Structure formats: C-alpha cells, structure tokens
C-alpha cells in the first residue's frame, strides 16, 4: 500500500492503543458488572464495587439516647418519665458524634424556635399536630425563653415550679 495511506493508519492504531493503555490504568479493577437486585445487569449493576465499602465507612453522628444514659442519668431518667419521653436527646442537643471526647460538650439550644416546631398551634384539625398541646407564639409569653418557665426534660404542667 502507499505510504500516505499507511501513515495515518499507524497514527490511528497508536492513538487507540494509547487510549486502551490509559483505560487500563485509570479504570479500577473492581469496576464492571456486578450481581444485584436484577441479577448481573449492565443497566443497574455497572459500577465500582469498592464504592459500597466507601459508603459503609461513612461516619455515624447520631448515636441514640441510650449512650447518654451512662453519664447524664438524671436527665435521661427525667425525660423518660415525662410527656417528652418520645423525643430523642440529639433532636434538641445536636448529634453526639464522639461526645464527650469530641465535641467535649454539646450545645444548649434555649431558643423558642426549638419548642415551636411542635407547639406552635397551626389549627390543622385532622393532622396529628392538633394532638399536641399548642400555643400561639405571638400571645404566649412572647419574647421570653420557653425554658425559663418550662423544664424541657419534664414539661408536665403539674410539676411546674
């Protein structure tokens, strides 16, 4: 064949070989079609398998209230016996992460907004929201912190000081 035909052909071959070589090094060995819900499916199971482990290694930050019981047994026992027993500590105090190592202490949120998430009266009759005792935030001691009068760990009105 003529030289001017062969030269671009060689160029093309080298180009393709370079791509294949690069692909060999860039694409991880665990990348491919893996069995899943749909069997070995290219449509749903074409991925890097190591990513599943990467997601499993993600850090857990909300630790649950049984953890708190060891050190904050007073608060734990109190809230357990109160109308707020269904509320997790970390909803109000934020994620424990590695508390008390890191962070050494959790924030205390004394804002009215925290309580109004549930106690602002919206007047929705058929919603479960209406089952929670509601107040009008503009009327009920506006400007004062709820926790100045109510104990968040035992809000029972009978036990108010």
């Amino acid at each position, binding site marked *: 064949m003529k030289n001017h035909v062969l030269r671009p052909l060689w160029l093309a071959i080298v180009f393709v070989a370079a791509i294949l070589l690069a692909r060999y090094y860039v694409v991880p060995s665990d990348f491919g079609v893996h069995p*899943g*819900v749909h069997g070995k499916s290219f449509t749903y199971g074409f991925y890097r398998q190591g990513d599943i482990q*990467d997601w499993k290694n993600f850090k857990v930050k909300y630790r649950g209230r049984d953890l708190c019981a060891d050190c904050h047994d007073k608060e734990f026992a109190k809230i357990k016996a109160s109308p707020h027993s269904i509320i997790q500590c970390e*909803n109000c105090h934020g994620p424990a992460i590695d508390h008390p190592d890191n962070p050494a202490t959790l924030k205390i949120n004394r804002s009215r907004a925290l309580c*109004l998430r549930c106690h*602002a009266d919206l007047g*929705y*009759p058929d919603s479960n929201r209406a*089952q929670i005792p509601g107040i009008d*935030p503009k009327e009920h001691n506006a400007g004062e912190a709820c926790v100045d009068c109510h104990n968040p760990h035992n809000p029972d009105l009978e036990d108010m000081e």
Partner: protein
Amino acid sequence: MSCSRRTLLKNTVKGAIAGAVPLSALKFLSPTEVKAAIGDAKVRWGFLVDTTKCVGCGFCVKACKKENEVPYDAPVTRTWVERYVITKDKKAHIDSPMGGRDGFTSRQIKDDGEPPENIPPEEITKAFFVPKLCNQCENPVCVQVCPVGATYQTPDGVVLVDRTWCIGCGYCIMACPYGVRFFHPKYHTAEKCTFCYHRITKGLKTACVDACPFGARRIGNLKDPNDPVTKAILSERVAVLKDEYGTKPQVFYIGLDYDVR
C-alpha cells in the same frame, strides 16, 4: 479471504449452538437458580411513611442533613417534609420552606410563585404533612441514564452514587420523577438519599427514622416476613408515589391524598 465448505458448515453449527445457549438458559432457570444468580438475596431495604403521624417538626430533615454532611444552610436536602393545606375552594396550598428543616411554626404558607398567604383555619378542609425521600426504586431510571456507571443499585436494593466516578452531567437529576437528586454544593457530584447506608449496614436505623418522635418513618427488610415493617406493608393499605412510571418505588405511604404527587 477463502472459505471452504467444511469451515462454513462448522461455523454455522457453532453459531447455532452459541445462539441457542442463552435462550435455553433463560427458559430453564428455576426460582432457586435465579436467587443464586442474584447473590445475597436475604436483604431488600424498604421504607414505610405514615403521613397520619407526621406533625411537621422537621427533626428528620435536620438529622439527615447533619448526619450526611449536606451543607446545612444550602437550599438542598436528601429528605424533606411537604405541607399540604386544602381549602374549601378545593385548592391545594403546598410548601416546604428549606425542606421543612426548621419545622412548620406558623400558618403562613407560600405556594410556588405566589405571595405568602395566611389561611384562616375556618377556610381549611384538611391539612397534613408528607415526608419525602428517595424511593430506592426497583427499576431506578436515574441508574439507567448514567453514562459512566457512577450510580448503581446495591444487591440489597439501595441506589448509591460513586462520588469519585460521577462526572456531574446531571442526567440522573433530570431523570428522577421524584426530584430527589441534586448537586452536592461541595463535591459538585450527584447527591441523593442513601437510606443512611452506613447506618443500616451496621444494624442501626436511618438518622431520620431515629429522629422521628412519632414513628412516622420506619425502615425494614422487605425480604424478612417477620420484620414488623414488612408485616405492616403487607397488612395495611399502602400506596406508592407515581406508580404509573413503572419505577416500582420501595418507599410505601399510609394516608396519601389525591393532591400528593
């Protein structure tokens, strides 16, 4: 190129056999063989949302954002809570300020493209909250459209995104009929609810399930007939969102309404 009669015949027979193998393989697979091919078939994560229990406190959204490191003040979230207020004129007012992250603390409601409205209670016929999250579909369209294999379905049915592999083309965000995907403000890759894969694979519940004080959110293994969530899904009247798309959502709802899409 030359081709003797002998090689032609040989290749024809070879080709016929090769063609017949996959067909017969498809035909004669028993259920057990199918299960074996699927791999670990003991777990399939499913979710049950009881909208009648939701009060719109938004603790689930807060917990999800903090647990999964979704920037707290960015207007994106993996799970969110919608408020529906239906008035006497049969109009549905729907909003979800910041995805419901700070709860619903006032009657003021802001429909898309309309000024905020203060609907008096006597105008309301019904009002309720609907938590939303990824449906972890049996047939996830978002996975089908990914051009690089960056999003996939795990053997236990959760759809994940490989952040190292995603090129940020946004096809999956457009494809999801439920609008659960978005770009992560920090990584600039597609982001979505993972059913807290790092928690459920350690025996914990998802952050949103743990955060909900009212039991409106539950997660369970649909392949375990003794799982309380599976039992509830089988015995109660449940529905899924946008059934007509054929995506087969694995998030089931109690108490859906005509206006919830």
